[in-house]
Structures are given as structure tokens and as C-alpha cells.
């Protein structure tokens, strides 16, 4: 065992490997910070190079890009309210508000620390309890998955505090948007209104960026235009004060603030690790669920949505905590649980390692080296992130008159580049318009995205369960795990109601 650890660490800490990790993290953060681009895309682009690299170096590069990309996504989420990756959408809710209140550095640092903590937790879980945890994930059939989705939907309803009716309505709209395209059971095209480009359904990236980013950018544009028309010109003195008024030394994350966000970070780490291990559940679900739970358990739930550092911490740690655990099904059973895991699986195959139960026993050294690299990349992410953050928070303070148009263009082209899809751009603009309309009528937007994310999974699970149960609705409560979820949902609603009563 000791021999193995020494050999693996020699592999993992080879200077070239370290260099590739650095390069990967740097690339990942930079790409992730661009709206619409994600680490996944960079990994896909680099797959061919995997052929030409030593496995340890290739792994270092890919792991670096992946982790850097996860954190990078939160940079544009906080700086411009544009989630760089789907997982960062929850971060943008509070992160962007915090930036608007002149606290970009605090927000970015909270994001960085919680991201690294969540990620490290998840990696440790992967390393130590990969096999037993994957066994739990594997016992989830359609019935259990439907219970999980129903449970998440209930949490969403509870999340939209005060306006539950509107939250429900918006979640329903999200589910409906997700139903556009091919019926998963019959394969028939439905709800496309005769538009052939919609046959494959709406993709996640344009809907997310449209709802969260385009609507926000257009509202910012409206404010700018009003100021221009009213001739509230930012004269030179005014401009200078805008930049000078932002004092980076006052925008430092204090130890007390950091400690206050820790609870939310831990909630996110736990939720993210669990959700990440479930095949198909995904980063954005993890982030939103952590956010909802952290709000419920927070001492200051009223700050959520208004720039709460806890909100950022929970979302970002939930998002990043999927990073390690998403490999659990891949390592233990060769089942990729997410797009990223699928890409890593492809890389393993290219390097002559077959993902699956024999992966660890056949390639013990390189996998242990990968474990070291996973942890080490978090350190690199922390250090590089910390070094780069001052520059990023300054970028966030650039004059909005120039920033808003540029961000708008980046969001459009970035969305196109993600899938090389023209349709995605039209969906993006439509989603933006929908987001603007809903905002004008003061609907909350987060439940829409959640409904959109879990809608297809919930439908598939429901209909698969019904097919397997021969059309009997009772099949939905025939699993102890499912019953557990329903009871947990019931208990949570009760707790929330009681807690709300007590507060009033």
C-alpha cells in the first residue's frame, strides 16, 4: 500500500504533470468565465491531444480545466449576472446582487473558497467511499428517481417564499418548455408548433443564459438608456468617483464573514456530493437544492436573493461538490453520470483504460495518481483564483455603458459556439424575452429553470415507472426509498410552515 502511494505520488507530482495542471486550471478559469463556454467544451476540444500525452499529464490537464471551469463559471455569474456554466446559474442570483452593491471581491472570494471546499469534500468522498456510495446510486430505479424529482419540486415551491402561487406557475412554465421536442417514450415530436428546429427540444444553455442573463442585461440597458436620455451624463469627475468609490481594501472578505458562510458551504458540499453521485441529476440541480436548503437553515434567510454571501457559498459549493462525486458511477460501474464524466470516460478509453469495475484494479497506480491530482488541482485552483481575482473584480467595475453591450454580444456568440447551433441563438433571445415579461410581472425566475431542468427527468421516470408497473399508479409508492423521499418532503413542508409561523 505504501509502495503504491509513493509510486502514485511520483507520477502525480512529476514536474510536467504539475505544469499541465496549472495550464489546465488557467485555461479552465478563463474559458469558464466567458458566458456560454464551459470546461466541458474545452475538454471535448482537447480529447485528441490525449493520444499524444502520458496518461498522468493528460489527466492533469483535463482535471485542471474541469475544476478551473467550474469556478470560472461563477466569475461571469457574479461580475455580469451571466452564468458562465449551467451550474453557476444559482450563484448568479446572489452573486450579481452582491456585485451591484459594490462587493464583487467579497462575492468572488466567497465563491472561490466555497467552491474549493465543496470540491475537496467531494473528491475525498470519491476517494474513500466511492464504491459503497455508487451502490446506493445504483439502487435508484425510475420509481426512486421520480420520488427524488417530486421532492425537488416541493423544495422549489418552498424556495419561492411569500409568492408560492407565482413560484408554482413559473415552475410549471419551466416544465412545459422542457416538454417541447421529442416525446421520450413514443419518439413522436410534440409541442413544436411546426418548427422543425424545435424537434430536439430546447437546450439548457440558451434557456439558462436567456432567462438569467439576457433579461438582466436588457434591464441594465434600459437603465443606461434612461440616464442617457435624461442627460445624467457621467462626467469625468463622476466617472472617476465611480472607480475611486470602489475601494478594494474595503471589499475584503473578513474572517467573521467567511466563518458565517461556512454552514451554507457545508450544506452545499453535502448536497452537491450526494446529487453529483446520482447519474443524470447534474450540477444545476445540486446548486439550486443547496441554495434552497441553505436559505431554510440560514440565520438570515431574508438576505437571500439580495446579495447574501451565504447564498453564493451554498450555490457555489453545491455546484463544485458534484465535481468529484460525478466520477463515482464512472469509476465503480463505468456509467458516466454527467457530460463531464462521459468526456473523462472517453479520455480513459483513448488511453487504453476501460471505465468499469476493473478500472481500479487494472490501473491502480494511475488512478491513485489521479486522486492526488484531483486534490492538488483544488490547491492550484485556490492559488490561481486568488491571484487572478483582483483583476477580475476590477473588470467587474468597468463602466456599464461599454460592458453591457460587450457582455450581450459574448452571450449570443458564446451560446452559438457551445453547440454550433443557430436554433440555440433564437431560443436564447426568446428565453430572454420570456424572462423580461416574467420579471415585469414580478414572477421569480429560479423555479422556471429548475422546472426546466427536472421536467424531462421527472416525466421519463414517471412514465417508465408506469410502464414497468403495468399502468398501476400505486407502483409509485412501492419502494422504501421513494416512500422515504415523500415522507421527507412532507416533514420539510411541515417544518417550513412551522418555522414561518414562528417568525411572524
Amino acid at each position: 500500500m505504501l509502495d503504491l502511494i509513493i509510486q502514485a505520488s511520483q507520477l502525480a507530482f512529476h514536474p510536467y504533470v504539475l505544469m499541465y495542471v496549472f495550464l489546465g486550471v488557467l485555461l479552465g478559469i478563463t474559458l469558464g468565465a466567458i458566458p456560454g463556454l464551459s470546461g466541458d467544451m474545452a475538454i471535448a476540444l482537447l480529447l485528441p491531444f490525449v493520444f499524444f500525452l502520458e496518461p498522468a499529464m493528460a489527466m492533469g490537464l483535463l482535471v485542471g480545466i474541469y475544476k478551473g471551469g467550474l469556478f470560472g463559471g461563477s466569475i461571469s455569474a457574479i461580475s455580469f449576472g451571466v452564468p458562465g456554466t449551467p451550474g453557476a446559474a444559482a450563484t448568479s442570483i446572489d452573486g450579481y446582487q452582491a456585485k451591484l452593491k459594490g462587493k464583487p471581491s467579497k462575492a468572488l472570494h466567497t465563491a472561490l473558497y466555497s467552491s474549493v471546499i465543496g470540491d475537496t469534500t467531494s473528491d475525498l468522498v470519491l476517494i474513500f467511499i466511492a464504491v459503497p456510495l455508487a451502490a446506493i446510486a445504483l439502487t435508484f430505479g425510475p420509481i426512486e428517481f421520480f420520488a427524488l424529482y417530486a421532492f425537488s419540486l416541493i423544495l422549489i415551491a418552498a424556495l419561492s417564499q411569500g409568492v408560492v402561487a407565482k413560484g408554482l406557475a413559473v415552475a410549471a412554465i419551466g416544465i412545459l418548455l422542457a416538454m417541447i421536442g421529442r416525446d421520450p417514450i413514443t419518439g413522436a415530436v410534440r409541442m413544436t408548433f411546426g418548427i422543425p428546429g424545435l424537434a430536439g427540444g430546447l437546450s439548457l444553455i440558451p434557456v439558462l443564459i436567456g432567462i438569467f442573463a439576457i433579461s438582466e442585461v436588457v434591464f441594465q440597458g434600459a437603465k443606461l438608456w434612461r440616464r442617457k436620455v435624461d442627460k445624467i451624463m457621467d462626467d469625468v469627475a463622476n466617472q472617476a468617483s465611480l472607480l475611486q468609490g470602489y475601494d478594494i481594501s474595503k471589499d475584503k472578505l473578513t474572517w467573521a464573514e467567511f466563518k458565517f458562510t461556512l454552514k451554507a458551504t457545508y450544506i452545499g458540499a453535502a448536497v452537491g456530493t450526494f446529487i453529483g453521485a446520482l447519474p443524470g441529476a447534474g450540477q444545476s440541480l445540486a446548486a439550486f437544492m443547496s441554495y434552497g436548503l441553505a436559505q431554510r437553515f440560514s440565520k438570515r434567510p431574508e438576505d437571500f436573493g439580495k446579495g447574501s454571501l451565504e447564498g453564493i457559498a451554498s450555490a457555489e459549493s453545491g455546484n463544485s461538490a458534484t465535481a468529484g462525486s460525478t466520477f463515482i458511477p464512472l469509476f465503480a460501474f463505468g456509467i458516466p453520470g454527467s457530460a463531464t464524466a462521459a468526456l473523462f470516460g472517453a479520455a480513459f478509453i483513448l488511453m487504453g483504460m476501460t471505465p468499469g469495475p476493473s478500472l481500479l484494479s487494472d490501473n491502480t497506480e494511475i488512478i491513485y495518481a489521479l486522486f492526488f491530482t484531483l486534490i492538488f488541482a483544488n490547491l492550484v485552483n485556490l492559488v490561481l483564483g486568488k491571484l487572478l481575482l483582483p483583476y477580475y473584480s476590477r473588470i467587474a467595475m468597468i463602466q456599464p455603458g461599454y460592458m453591457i453591450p460587450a457582455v450581450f454580444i459574448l452571450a449570443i456568440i458564446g451560446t452559438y459556439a457551445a453547440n454550433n447551433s443557430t436554433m440555440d441563438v433564437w431560443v436564447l433571445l426568446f428565453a430572454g424575452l420570456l424572462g423580461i415579461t416574467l420579471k415585469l410581472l414580478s414572477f421569480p425566475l429560479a423555479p422556471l429553470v429548475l422546472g426546466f431542468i427536472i421536467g424531462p427527468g421527472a416525466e421519463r421516470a414517471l412514465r417508465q415507472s408506469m410502464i414497468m408497473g403495468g399502468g398501476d399508479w400505486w407502483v409509485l409508492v412501492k419502494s422504501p426509498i421513494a416512500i422515504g423521499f415523500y415522507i421527507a418532503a412532507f416533514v420539510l413542508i411541515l417544518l417550513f410552515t412551522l418555522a414561518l409561523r414562528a417568525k411572524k
Partner: protein
Amino acid sequence: MNHTLVKELLAAVVVLSLGIAGLIHIQLGAWRPAPLVPSYIMPQTAYYFLIASGVWILGAIGIFTARKRLANLGTPNAEQHDLVAVGMSVSVMLIGAVFYFLSVLNIGLVVSTVVFNAILVAVLAPNASLKTLATVPPLVGIVVWLLFVKLIGMTLPTPLLF
């Protein structure tokens, strides 16, 4: 009529009509028969939820009006929007984006980006000057080109210009 009341009524009407229109679509549309549960089961549930929440919002308006506590209606600290400015910005940005992307596909990425960026800056930036108009848009064009064409290798139809 109070501003919030109008907004809430409008919200209820939008939600209700979406739900009802959807149910009609389920009745009239062609849905391929599916085994055991119909393929519109999820949309149908969503439409019921829409109608229920529409009724809920209407009910809330009724109760608040009856109790003369209209001030408490709606979302706490909802932002008041400047409708004229939003309309203006929607037409310049969103409709502009449609033309922008069409010209990216047909004329060329860099040219379209520089022009669209210049238009946006000219219309929106409160302190746009000729000097910034000459520097910022080309810079954005170069950045977009470097990132998406050089680094990412984005796939676009062969452009007419550049």
C-alpha cells in the same frame, strides 16, 4: 387603479390563459398514442398547476381587496420598472440581436460584431464619445474573433466578408 393591482391581475390573466390554452391544445392537438399513460401527462399536470396558481393569485387579490390591505399585495420590495426604457432597450437589444445574428451568419462575424457593438454603445452608453466609438467596438470585434474563431474554432458558414 393601483400599479401593483394591475400587475397582479395581469399575471393572473396570463397564467390562467396559458393554462386554458394548453388544455385546449391537448384536446385538439395530434398526440401519438403512448403505452399506459398518455404522452400529454406532464404538460397536462403543468397546465393544471398554471390554472390553480392563477386562481390562487386572483383569490389573493380578492382577499387583500376585501380586507383593504392592497398595499401588502404582491411581492415584497418588487422593483418598479421604467416601461418606456425597457421597451426601448428590448427593441434595440433583442430585435437588434436578431439582425446581428443573421448578419453574423450571412455577412461575417467580425464586421457584424463591430457594427452591432458600435450601435449599442452609441444608443446606450451615457457618455459615449467619438473617441470611444472608434476604439471600443473594434476591440470587442478582435476579442470575439480571437476567442471564438482562433481559440475555440467555432463553426460558422463561410462568410461573405470577414
